[in-house]
Each structure stands twice: as C-alpha cells, then as structure tokens.
C-alpha cells in the first residue's frame, strides 16, 4: 500500500538524484578547459523495486544510477597510433627543418668552398709561380677542408641535439609508464565497488596519450580493467601493474649516439620506438646520418683524387709532391680533413708542375681536372654534393609532408574525441536548466504531499 509518507520519502530520494545530476553538470562546467577531462553523465534510474499496490506496480521515484564518462571507443582505439605517427613525423620534420648548413643559397657553405677551391687553382693555373696565387690556392684548400669540418660538425651537432631530446624523452616516458602502472592499480581498487573512477580514468588516459606521442605505444585493455602498453615491435612498456624502464645508452657502432634499451622483469632488450622518440631517431640516423656519411665519402674520395694528382707533380723546389690533404680514414673523413701543414707553412711545396719550369702549371691543370673526375659514387664532386643536398632535401620534404598529413589525421580524430568527450557549456547549461526544472517539480510534489497530509490531519 502506498501512503503519503512514502511519497515524501520518494521525493527526498528523487531530489538527491537531481542534486547528483546538477553536481555532475557543475563538475563538467568547472572542468570545461581541463586538458584530458572527459565529460561525465549522470544516469538517473527509476528506484527499484516498484511497489505492488493491489494488482499493479507503483514506481518509487528516481535514483542516481552511475556517473559515466563520454568516450567513443572507436575513436579512442585509433588515437594512440595517430598520436604516435603525428609526433614521429613532426619530430623528424622539426629536426631536419632546423638544419641550415646545407641550404643551397646560403653564404659560405660547402658548395662555395668547393667552387672557391677550384677557382683559386684556376687562377693559379695562369701563373703557377706567383706567390700570392699559391698562397690563395693553399688558403682555398684550407677553406674547403674547414668547410667540410664545419658542415659535418653542424650536422653532427643536430644529431647530438636529437640525442639530447631523446634523453629528455626517456625520463618522461619512464615517469609516465610508472604513472600508468600505478593508476592501473588504483583504478582496479576503485572499481571494486562497481563504480567508475572517472577522474582516475582521465588521469590514466592523459598519461597514455602522452606515452603514445612519445613512443607510439598502443593500448591493450585487460579483463581487470588495466591498460597495458606495447611499443611498436611488441615490447611491453606497461604490463598491467608493472612498468618497464627505458634507458638511453651510447652506441659505439653509431659514433656514440644513443640507442634505446627496455628493461622489464630482469630482461633488457634493444627497442625501436615510434612516436617522438622514433621521429628523433629517424631524423638522426636517416636524413642527418645519410648526409654525414655522404660528406665523409665525398671528403675521402675528393682528398684521395686530389692527393693522387698532387703527389704526381713536382713542387717549386723540384721535389715530388706531397699529399695536399691529410685524412686518415674514410670514416669521419669530413671531420678530419685538413691541408698538409708542411704545405701551409711553405707554399713552394704546392706541386704545380710536372717537367717544366716554375711557371709550368700542367699539374695545376691536372688538379683542376679532378673537378670532373667521377668519384666512388660515379659522379664528380659538385654532382655528389648536389646529390647529398637533394637527398637531404627529399628527406626533409618527405618528413614535412608526412607531418602535415599525420597532423591532419590526428586533428580530425582529436576533433571527433572532443565532439564526444569534451564539455559544451551550452549543453551543460541546458542540462542544468532541465535539472532545475525537475528539482522544482519534485519540490512541488513534496509540497503538495505535505498539503495532502495537512488535509488528512484536519479530517482526523
């Protein structure tokens, strides 16, 4: 049997439910700008069980069921990959785009030094015994060697800069991986009651998003509600409650540049992450690494070709020519190349002639011919340098184009996520209005019931 007190009691619990809904709206509005916050929805449900009155059921009012997050699983499943790809191509594009040492129209670059070298020897060919022209030729050779060193140094500096970013990212990755593992535990505990710990879920999702950007890690949810994270290639970064440790170690086989190892449960393995880390490594060992090795090969080949000709000539004193450039090995040749100090100290040692007098420039002409000598790659020096520049440009352009495409995909998915998960003040205010109206109506029910009780009391 339904009595008036029951209606009052029902009204009180329904007011509680509406208050909960209003609090959820308020919380949403207060987090309208909070990064990583997913709007929450209060689900009101009829109170069960209904009361059997006679042969029919009369409802028991409303109660607050659950407060859930608004998340689109379809979009959420795609976001880690999109975050990883966008961060990867963006990192590569930024690293390669910041390199200006190979700019084709920049002043004082390697191409200027190369043409300056041959120009100086061209001038020397006209008057091989002229001391000032000999001095200028040796100076131009020095400028060429210095330009090789500076160009390689700038490229190596960019590679070291990428290493520093990698080292910084590794610390962040370890911190975030620990957070995710810890949050897995907290969420597991908080979910035991059956309620969703929305703020913990937000915190974990935010950390997962950052890890996806940094490493390209993808999420695999477990039956316990944990989020395990796996790097491209399958290595576990977070396995339920356990976080792996990423470490950056110098790699002797790569000029001491950093390589990444992942340790989990006593096992350490080499990993190649995606995301920003992958992009940094790709720029370092791809576009930049190729340019450095191309320069080394060019320096080695060019020095070899010039030295061969120079040593076949005769200096002003009638002695056989020495090596014009000193360079000890093909690896790192562009960093080592220098003009023979003996020749720098005495320009008479320039082997400009072969059999003639001091004005004989036949060996200078032979040295000039090295400008069109095919080097190991089948092209002459300037074509080889052009090829290095083009290849670097293609890598930079490709990274830039990939960055734009990946960013567009990421932006679209983020927009779709926001469409579902972020807070709309308009929506929340409408909801607040609705809750306010409902609250007022329930209050009216209580007031009316109270009047009914008064009437009943007066009768009795």
């Amino acid at each position, binding site marked *: 049997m339904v009595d008036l007190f029951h209606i009052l009691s029902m009204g009180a619990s329904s007011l509680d439910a509406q208050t909960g809904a209003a609090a959820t709206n308020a919380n949403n509005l207060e987090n309208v700008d909070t990064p990583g916050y997913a709007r929450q929805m209060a689900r009101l449900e009829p109170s069960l069980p209904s009361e059997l009155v006679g042969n029919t059921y009369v409802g028991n009012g409303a109660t607050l069921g659950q407060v859930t997050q608004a998340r689109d699983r379809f979009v959420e499943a795609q976001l880690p990959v999109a975050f990883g790809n966008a961060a990867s191509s963006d990192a590569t594009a930024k690293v390669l785009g910041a390199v200006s040492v190979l700019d084709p129209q920049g002043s004082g670059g390697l191409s200027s030094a190369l043409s300056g070298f041959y120009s100086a020897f061209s001038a020397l060919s006209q008057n091989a015994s*002229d001391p000032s022209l000999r001095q200028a030729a040796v100076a131009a050779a020095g400028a060429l060697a210095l330009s090789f060193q500076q160009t390689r140094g700038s490229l190596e500096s960019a590679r070291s800069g990428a290493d520093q970013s990698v080292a910084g990212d590794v610390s962040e990755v370890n911190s975030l991986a620990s957070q995710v593992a810890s949050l897995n535990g907290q969420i597991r505990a908080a979910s035991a009651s059956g309620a969703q710990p929305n703020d913990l879920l937000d915190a974990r999702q935010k950390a997962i998003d950052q890890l996806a950007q940094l490493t390209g890690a993808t999420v695999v949810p477990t039956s316990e509600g944990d989020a395990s994270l796996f790097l491209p290639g399958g290595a576990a970064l977070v396995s339920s409650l356990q976080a792996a440790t990423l470490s950056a170690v110098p790699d002797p086989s790569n000029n001491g540049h950093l390589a990444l190892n992942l340790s989990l449960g006593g096992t350490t393995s080499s990993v190649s992450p995606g995301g920003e880390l992958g992009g940094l490594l790709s720029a370092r060992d791809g576009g930049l690494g190729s340019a450095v090795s191309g320069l080394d090969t060019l320096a080695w080949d060019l020095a070899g070709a010039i030295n061969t000709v120079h040593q076949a000539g005769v200096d002003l004193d009638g002695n056989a020519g020495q090596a014009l450039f000193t360079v000890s090995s093909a690896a790192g040749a562009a960093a080592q190349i220098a003009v023979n100090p003996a020749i720098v100290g005495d320009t008479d040692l320039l082997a400009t002639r072969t059999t003639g007098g001091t004005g004989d420039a036949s060996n200078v002409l032979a040295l000039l011919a090295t400008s069109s000598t095919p080097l190991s790659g089948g092209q002459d020096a300037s074509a080889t340098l052009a090829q290095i520049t083009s290849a670097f440009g293609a890598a930079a352009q490709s990274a830039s184009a990939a960055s734009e495409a990946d960013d567009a995909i990421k932006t679209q998915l983020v927009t779709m996520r926001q469409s579902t998960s972020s807070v709309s003040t308009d929506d929340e205010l409408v909801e607040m209005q609705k809750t306010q109206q409902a609250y007022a109506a329930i209050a009216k029910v209580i007031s009316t019931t109270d009047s009914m009780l008064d009437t009943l009391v007066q009768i009795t």
Partner: protein
Amino acid sequence: MRVTDTMFYDRAEVDGAAARSRLDQATATASSGLRVVQPGDDPGAAGALVSEGVNMQRIGAIATAAGRAADEVTAASDALGQIQTSLARASEIAVQLSSSQYGASERAGGAAEVQALISTILSDANTKVGDRYIFGGTADSAQPFDGLALAADGTVDASTGTYRGAADTRQVEIAPGVAQDASLRADVALRGVGGGVDVIATLTSLANALSANNAAGVAATVGQLSQGVSQVSTAQSQAGTCLDTLDTAVSANQAASSDAQKRIANLGDADEIQSASDLALAQHALDTSLTAISQSFKFSLVDKL
C-alpha cells in the same frame, strides 16, 4: 556533430596559427625573393642550385684566368711588334750600309745603332708582366735572354742574347678540361730553334760586320734579317691567334657564367608577381580568420540565460 567549447577554441587557435604561418611564409618569400631557401623547399632544385653555383664560380674563375693570360699575350704581341720595328730598322741599316758608297765611319755609326737595337730587342724579349717574364716559357722567374755583351774590342760577344728560358709554352684553362697555349716560343721566334733564322746571331753578325767595316759581311745579313722580320711577324700572328682564342674563351665563359646565373635565378628565385599575390592572399586570409574567430566568440548561452 556536437560542437564543444574546447573544439571551438582549438579551432580558433589552429586556424589562426595556420593563417599566420601562411602569412609568415608568404612574407619570407616576398621579402627574400627566394623560392628555395632550404633543401626541403624543392630538393631537385636545391641540388641543381649547388651544381650550378659551383659551375658558375668555376667558369667565372676560368674567364678571369683567361683574361689575365690574354693580357700577357697582348703584352707579348706588343713586344714582338716593337722587336719587329727594331728588326726592320736593322734591316734598313744593313741594306743601306752594305753599299760601297759608305765608309768606315758611317759603318761604325751603324754598328753603334745596331748594338742599341740588339739591346732594345733583348729588353723587349725580357718583358715582364708583374713579376713574370713572359717570353721564358715555363721558366718565367728569371729573364730568358742574356743582355748585350761586348767584347774587349767593342764588338758584340757571341754570348749576347743567350736563351735561358724553357723550350716550352705555358698553358691556361679556357674551359673545364680544355687547355690553351698562353705564351709564345721566344727561342723559336728570336733564336731560330727548330730551323728558323737566329735573329740575335744575325744582328750580332751585322753589328760586328759594321764594326769591321765589312760591307760584304753586312750584305750577307740582309736576307736573314728579312727572314727574321717575317719570323717575328709570324710569332706576332700566332700571338694574335692565341689572343683571339683567349678573348673568345673569356667571352664564352662570361656568357656561360651569365647563363648559369640565370638558371640559378630560375631555380631559386621567387616569381615577384606570384609572391606579391600570395602575400596579399595570405594577409586577407589572416584578416578573415581573425574576424571569424572574434565574431564567433560573441555567441554563448551564458550570455543569454
């Protein structure tokens, strides 16, 4: 699609930043005048710019070297012209004083003049451009011909005009991989190396025959002097040919350098009209974007309730 506040502000940020980025890029292109700044702007053009840049400087340097060589050949041609004039005068003296009308005193005067001519010719043959003796072949650091040497009796010594230079020519690059003679064989022109007339020896004979009042000896030099004049004239013609080649090389290399410069401009420079148009469009786009953003900020239910 549900549009939320975050989407709205994010769009404002992203679109505003994109419009500003386009304006920055358009401004950079318009102000620098360069289409290709970094290799990534156009990898193919960047590589071609490197090659063309090296090529342009290289042929520019060749033009400069060929021009300097042409200056030396011009100096050599001038010197040969003066030598030719001196030889013509010696020839006149020989023809005149081989005549029996003249006596010892006239021939002694002639001998003195011929000695002076020898000295002048050797001086011309030791012409320097800068610090370089241009008639010494590759041995260009010392004077190629010994000067006039007189014996104790006042006659011209046989060592006069001994050639100390090299029996070769200097060469200069006139195009990548192409060399051209840039000096003349003075030993051939003046000492008859290779079968010609030894001009210096003939002049020595003339001077000494005049000193000895030997009319027959004087007459014997007339024919050789005439050949010597032709020989020097031939050398001068060779200088002219050489000069033509060098001048052509200078012009060709300057033209090639200019062409390379144009190719560099075509590859790397921005089209002025296009960049100005892009700049105006980018300015307009940013203005529109900012206007749209500022307008959309005005509408919210917060202000209506």
